[in-house]
């Protein structure tokens, strides 16, 4: 479904990604983990097109994504839930969700998607008229995920959904993500700092370190591997 081949990104003279390749098959749950500053968010931004790629290719269902302007990529059925949530702070919760449904397929299935989002996150239904900027961190994260779901995506990309959240809320978010994967059949690409949770959910995982993929494999293998821990703590020398 998503094929990233030999992707390289640099900005400001710093090489953020160097020859990264990964593949996501339909209905899979794929996780990318790695220490801070490894280039995980850059990978997502390059796929979404908000940072330009220097080399390599990204294909989604056979289409060359790098040839498309960033705004067209959402219309193909890719939803990006960005790091730090990035909700529209001056708009209401409902309007944020409606913005998520901006692509054509989103507008067609908007009512069904809204029901589903409110079923997953009843809190959003309670607060639907509230300004997004006044929500708590956890609620904003729910809203960001809800906004991603609103376009009825086939691929949902989640960037550090647990960042800055209390453990109980983070667990709830992971539970929902897993539910979305199982019940709605949405393909998931997740970037996370909580390695254990992230690897537990995934079919396949990648470890990214200083812009390179240093490990990959099915979750059973990775979660046994101490090199993941060493990499994560930045102890290096894998």
């Amino acid at each position: 479904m998503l094929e990233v081949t030999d992707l390289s990104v640099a900005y400001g003279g710093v090489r953020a990604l160097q020859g990264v390749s990964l593949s996501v098959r339909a209905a899979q749950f794929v996780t990318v983990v790695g220490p801070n500053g490894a280039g995980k968010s850059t990978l997502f931004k390059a796929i979404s097109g908000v940072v330009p790629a220097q080399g390599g290719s990204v294909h989604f269902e056979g289409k060359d994504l790098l040839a498309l302007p960033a705004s067209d990529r959402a219309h193909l059925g890719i939803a990006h839930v960005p790091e730090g949530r990035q909700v529209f702070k001056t708009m209401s919760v409902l309007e944020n969700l409606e913005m998520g449904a901006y692509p054509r397929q989103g507008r067609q299935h908007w009512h069904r998607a809204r029901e589903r989002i409110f079923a997953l996150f009843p809190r959003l239904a309670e607060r639907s008229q509230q300004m997004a900027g006044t929500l708590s961190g956890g609620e904003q994260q729910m809203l960001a995920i809800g906004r991603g779901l609103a376009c009825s995506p086939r691929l949902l990309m989640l960037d550090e959904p647990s960042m800055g959240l209390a453990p109980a809320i983070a667990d709830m978010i992971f539970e929902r993500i897993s539910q979305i994967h199982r019940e709605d059949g949405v393909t998931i690409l997740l970037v996370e700092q909580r390695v254990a949770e992230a690897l537990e959910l995934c079919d396949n995982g990648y470890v990214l370190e200083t812009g390179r993929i240093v490990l990959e494999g099915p979750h059973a293998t990775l979660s046994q591997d101490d090199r993941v821990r060493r990499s994560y703590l930045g102890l290096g020398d894998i």
Partner: protein
Amino acid sequence: MSGLHPRSLLPVLRPGAGRRLRRDALLFALMICVYLAAGSLVKNSYYQLMLTLVPIWAAMGLSWNLFSGYSGLISFGHAAFIGVGAYTVALSAAYLCVTPWLSIPAGAVLGGVAAVLIGLPTFRLRGHYFALAMLAYPLLMLYVLQYLGFQEVALPMQREHPAAWLQFADRRMDMLVAAGLLVVAMGISMVVENSAFGLSLMALRQNELAAEAAGLNPRRLKMKALALSGALAAAAGGLYACVLLVVTPDAVFGMLTSAQALVIAMFGGVGTYWGPLIGAIVLIPLAETLQAEVGDIIPGIQGVVYGSAIILIMMVAPDGLFWTVRDRLQRRRPMAPAPAADIAPMRTQVTAFRTEAAGPLLVVEGLSRAFGGLRAVDDVSFSVTPGQVLGIIGPNGAGKTTLFNLINGVLPADAGTVTLGGKSLGGLSLHQIARSGVGRTFQVVRSFPRLPLLDNVIVGAYGAGLEGAVAAESACLALERTGLHHLAATLAGGLTNKQQRLMELARALAGRPRVLLLDETLAGLGHEECDDVLLVLERLRDEGLTIVIIEHTMHAMLRIADEFLVVDHGKMLARGSPHSVLEDRRVVEAYLGSKWAAKCSK
């Protein structure tokens, strides 16, 4: 050149500026001679007037540049000062019978006062609001003068004493006086640009937060610059009134006047005294000639010329002609041979850092800060003893940078205290805290790309209140410590990423901090580069500098930190020796999640 003897001004100048100044002063003197010689040949009175206007507008451009060019706060209302000067001269000639020789300096004083009065409320405004407010002041004055009935003030004819009233029968004398004004304006600009003051202003433009964290007082600096700029603009406005003989509110307070001062400086080049000069030489004759030739058929051609000039320059060469041409020439010049070793070994044994009294140096107690519902920093307490290196670690968004911001006063704390050497830092502003000895580097490095490395570093010394030779010495020592002394004369724009990081470090060291807060100094560096910077940090530690460092690269932290402090969700999780902290279950949990930690402890 009268009134400017570089030698006598040496104390206020930056090291190495003297030679540049002498060269530029010579070139400028030559230009003035050419101007006067050419002017003396012109017989047509209209062209004489036009030639007189060139230095006057150049002086107005210089005055705009003196404030906006160096400080980076764009003023859209310099007409306020020009108008004050022009009206002072016109009204005192018409009603008080005072000669311009007195009223021009008086106007300059009033212009300076107006600048302070305008600056007091306006510097509190940020970005857009500052621009809008500055636009409003001259228009406000315009309406008030119209209301007071000064729609048109003519300077009375004084044929008997032409020299006393600046009403020469031979208009070439006007050129001489205008050239005199320009010499004064240029002299002030040259000294400012090459002084500690000018460099401090440029530091504000580059990054106000970092400049203030280095100890500079932004408001005072801006106020001084605006007062100087306002006085100069008013003096130019006064002479402008003498040349025009009639003053109207629209001509001196109008939007076109403000725009013209801005356009001349921006067209020629911002942040250099050559800029307004070039701008005036190109634009004034162009606009005036067009106005004279086709102004009758096409009124408003002047405004269109300035409007087009500014749009053109912004789209093609946003820094102005001077910089664009210079950058291009410099690129063409063959590159200087790269220095053999990019970090030089230390030449001499440098003296160790000042010895501190025993006992904790930096004490943080119960520090807290919330943003809305999010407790970014929650009851954090720790202390650092002299010579210690404390590493702060924690996952993304844990509140580490916020903690730094609370310690050095970028943000006010909701609760808690910070003391340095027994003295409380509570209630002090950012630059005061810097002056008491808290140095800081930021995640984003910003340099003056067109200034030599030494100038980039010496700002740190100026920030700490050091002056003249002491500041230079401190900066040189900082360069030595970071291994950059062999690059002191290199333009900062040509430095590598690693050298820029070291430069930032040197800038902080130049202020002779008692505690240095380092925020991700190694971010974005490759493995070998990391090692080089680490060597420098290790050296600083061995010399006895007290350091608190935030860093993600754990193996780097293991090399330099004596102790770790782990922060997560704004709270302190653990503190202790590096290895004990890394084995701590709560730490593994913070980084890898609870399930992983559970698995490890099984």
